[in-house]
């Protein structure tokens, strides 16, 4: 026995260092997981580089920054003098998203409170599935609903000349953004410890007092993030807005006016814009602008969530 004491450990270590099948599987999986992990970073950088590369020739070339942001005249294919002004498009995107949020925020917060705080058992599960199903409706279907159903409905109800506009696309976009906002808001409500609710109830608070005075303040960061993500969804939505907004270059004065969104302009015109032309590059410049807006919105949502985490 004593003679063996010094030997076995080295021998065991040597024995264990066998590159068998398991070793290779382990290595392979860890490489795959690593590639998957960094792929998002690589892709987002790649997309940013691509958009910038295509658009930068316009930014430093024919673009007049002041005209680009303050002129409502978007005439990229004009034969006499092409003008690139996105003011009307920015106003269009902002007004449609604004109305969509006015509609979606009360709806989705209400739905989240009902699913998270009131509904139980089967009702709750059914509602959750239905809300997620709503998110699965393709945007072109929403757009068609706007064009074929909402348009005549708005014309008849409000006696206006056309039903494609801020109201139509705002409602459609609100309904599209509501499911994702509901899901995230409900997660935020669920993250509030039950102890908070029980403590409040023990002190005689009514159900509404519990929700408004205890649960909402505790979940406010998550709810804020839900709203911001909804805003991001609104800015980025293309097909439904293209079909329901009227796609008309116009500075709106009422909620019934037709407008045109930044995303819809890219979608409608990029396909046949000659590659490398000023028109093509101007569309990519809009792309850079949209990318930056969405990035800022998502960053804000992220900071809001993290800020809450630190305080707790």
């Amino acid at each position, binding site marked *: 026995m004593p003679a063996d004491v010094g030997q076995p450990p080295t021998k065991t270590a040597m024995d264990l260092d066998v590159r068998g099948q398991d070793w290779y599987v382990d290595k392979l999986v860890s490489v795959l997981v690593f590639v998957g992990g960094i792929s998002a970073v690589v892709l987002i950088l790649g997309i940013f580089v691509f958009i910038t590369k295509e658009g930068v020739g316009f930014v430093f070339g024919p673009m007049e920054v002041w005209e680009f942001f303050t002129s409502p005249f978007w005439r990229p294919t004009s034969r006499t003098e092409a003008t690139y002004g996105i003011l009307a498009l920015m106003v269009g995107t902002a007004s449609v998203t604004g109305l969509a949020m006015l509609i979606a925020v009360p709806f989705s917060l209400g739905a989240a409170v009902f699913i998270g705080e009131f509904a139980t058992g089967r009702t709750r599960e059914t509602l959750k599935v239905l809300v997620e199903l709503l998110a699965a409706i393709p945007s072109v279907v929403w757009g068609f609903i706007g*064009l074929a159903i909402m*348009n*005549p409905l708005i014309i008849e109800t409000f*006696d206006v000349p056309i039903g494609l506009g801020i109201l139509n696309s705002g409602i459609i976009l609100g309904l599209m953004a509501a499911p994702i906002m509901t899901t995230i808001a409900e997660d935020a409500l669920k993250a509030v410890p039950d102890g908070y609710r029980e403590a409040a109830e023990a002190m005689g608070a009514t159900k509404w007092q519990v929700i408004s005075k205890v649960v909402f303040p505790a979940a406010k960061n998550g709810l804020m993030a839900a709203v911001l993500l909804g805003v991001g969804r609104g800015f980025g939505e293309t097909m439904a807005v293209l079909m329901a907004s009227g*796609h008309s*270059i116009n500075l709106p004065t009422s909620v019934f006016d037709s407008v045109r969104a930044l995303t819809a302009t890219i979608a*409608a*015109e990029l*396909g046949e814009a000659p590659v490398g032309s000023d*028109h093509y590059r101007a569309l990519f410049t809009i792309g850079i602008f949209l990318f930056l807006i969405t990035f800022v919105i998502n960053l804000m949502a992220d900071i809001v969530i993290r800020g809450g985490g630190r305080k707790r």
Partner: protein
Amino acid sequence: MCIILWDEFPILVEILTRGTTMNRFFRTAPLVVFLLACGGGDSSRTVIQNRGSDTLVNVAQAWAEAYSAIDPRVAVAVTGGGSGTGISAMINGTIDIANASRAMSESEIEDAHARGVDPIEHIVGYDALAVFLHPDNPIDAMTVAQLANIYAEGGEFEDWSQLGVTVPGCSSGEIIRVSRQNNSGTYAYFEEAVLGGAEYGLGSRDMNGSSEVVELVANTPCAIGYSGLAYATDHVKMPCVSFQGSDCVAPTTSSAVDGSYPIARPLFMYTNGEPTGAIGAYMDWIKSSVGQCIILAKGYASAAPVTCT
């Protein structure tokens, strides 16, 4: 054989996914060999690559299908993507036939020559651009000058009362202009033929497809729109159009063929040089009465008058 295999595909998948790896390998190996042979068998067929105009894509598809019965050794692969896409593929020499709803520009032809491609233009039909009104609109006849005054920048007409009508269901009277996105061939042709080179006024509703134009006008009493005749439905009204005091002509395939309808555009196919061999035979067949009756049946006008049964 290949088609039979395709029909059996779900069953094959089921067979292949059952059993052990070894079993699966032995089942798959002969199949792979067979599939390769099947793919290889096609090499004796001639494939004609045909790309371009979305206006023409349905017709081109119908031609390709009908032609496969005439000459089974020739397969025509049709893709859309727009006139611009087809023309640039022609310039780059990657396709055999380009479809276009507009003529190639001078600079595009120069580009093609610089790359050793000699595009030859073939008119394969005509497309009448119909003006669409809501069925309740009392207007039955319009002039090109009226259309220009409605659509062009600085045009006079903004209200239906200026045209002497009140449209039921359109209480504000505002003319809702429905147009197309600014780089479509239809938009460009309408600008040239109707506006006479003037700019479109901003504020029109620019739809992303001809069928959306029809859908919107059908549902909107105040609206006016334009698009290819082939997209018309029973839910819209098409007024006759007159040009500089000529007779008012209704948009039909026959009035587009004989040139009496003022806003009809030719539809083109481009080949690299005078087509020979399989491509030449295909182009001749398209221009024959059989091919021309197919384009008529799709709602476009033939390049020359034909009688179809």
